[in-house]
């Protein structure tokens, strides 16, 4: 084989290998693109789980001991703002604070354990609850539910929903306020209710 034939042979091999390499590269990039974009449906070797975690950082509303004032038929207690009590001598209290301390945005449901009749009792008792942002933008309200609006607390309702309760540190806390009316013939003694928050990772 003379020198020219050797060069020709090498050139042909180089071209063939390069063409094959280009084809492989094209196919690899096309495959990688579908993996990154999630266009392909396949089986993953690794599952990365996102942790949903919520916590009541202010867990208790405690109005203490008191009664409906003489001459009044009912007292009104609210936790909005600094809290208020009218027509009664209970101690004003502020609302609950719920924080998303996980690593994922979550959907959120808040439920109560009682309704007005078995929590407060008597004639004309009222039990209302509302959810609002304690940090701006924490809760994106679900359809049919408005932030900052009082709804009747009812065990049969899936009460309140945030479509998205954020985990960002600057916007990961909501406030749950209550508004109750206690009639003079209400149940007496220690009354209470349990508030349950359920979060599901998005």
């Amino acid at each position, binding site marked *: 084989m003379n*020198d020219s034939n*050797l*060069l020709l042979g*090498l050139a042909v*091999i*180089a071209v063939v*290998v*390069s063409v*094959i*390499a280009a084809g*492989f*590269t094209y*196919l690899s990039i096309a*495959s*990688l693109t579908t*993996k990154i974009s*999630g266009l392909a449906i*396949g089986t*993953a*070797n*690794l*599952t*990365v*789980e*996102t942790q*949903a*975690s919520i*916590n*009541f950082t202010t*867990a*208790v*509303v*405690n109005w*203490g*001991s*008191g*009664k409906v004032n003489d001459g009044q038929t009912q007292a009104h207690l609210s936790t909005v703002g600094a809290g208020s009590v009218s027509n009664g001598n209970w101690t004003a209290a502020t609302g*609950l604070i*719920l924080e998303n301390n*996980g690593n*994922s945005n*979550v959907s959120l449901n808040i439920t109560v354990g009682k309704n007005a009749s078995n929590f407060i009792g*008597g004639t004309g008792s009222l039990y209302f609850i509302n959810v609002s942002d304690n940090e701006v933008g924490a809760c994106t309200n679900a359809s049919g539910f408005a932030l900052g609006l009082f709804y009747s607390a009812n065990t049969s309702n899936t009460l309140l929903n945030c479509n998205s309760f954020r985990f960002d540190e600057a916007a990961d806390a909501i406030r749950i306020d209550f508004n109750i009316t*206690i009639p003079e*013939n*209400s149940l*007496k*003694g*220690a*009354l*209470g209710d*349990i*508030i*349950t*928050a*359920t*979060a*599901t*990772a*998005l």
Partner: protein
Amino acid sequence: MDKTQKIVTVLLILAILFSATSIFISVSISKLDIPDKVVSGRSVDNGGGIMIYVEGENEEGSG
């Protein structure tokens, strides 16, 4: 083989080597499994509570 032919030969050999390397890398990438992200998890906190003490005696039939 003159000097120019030797240079061309070396360049062609390098081209073949680089192309082969390219094929190897492409095959490796095609076998790469990029994990999907699966989001799951649920958290329940039933630690919220409201408490009040109403002074007085329960009336008969109240509540």
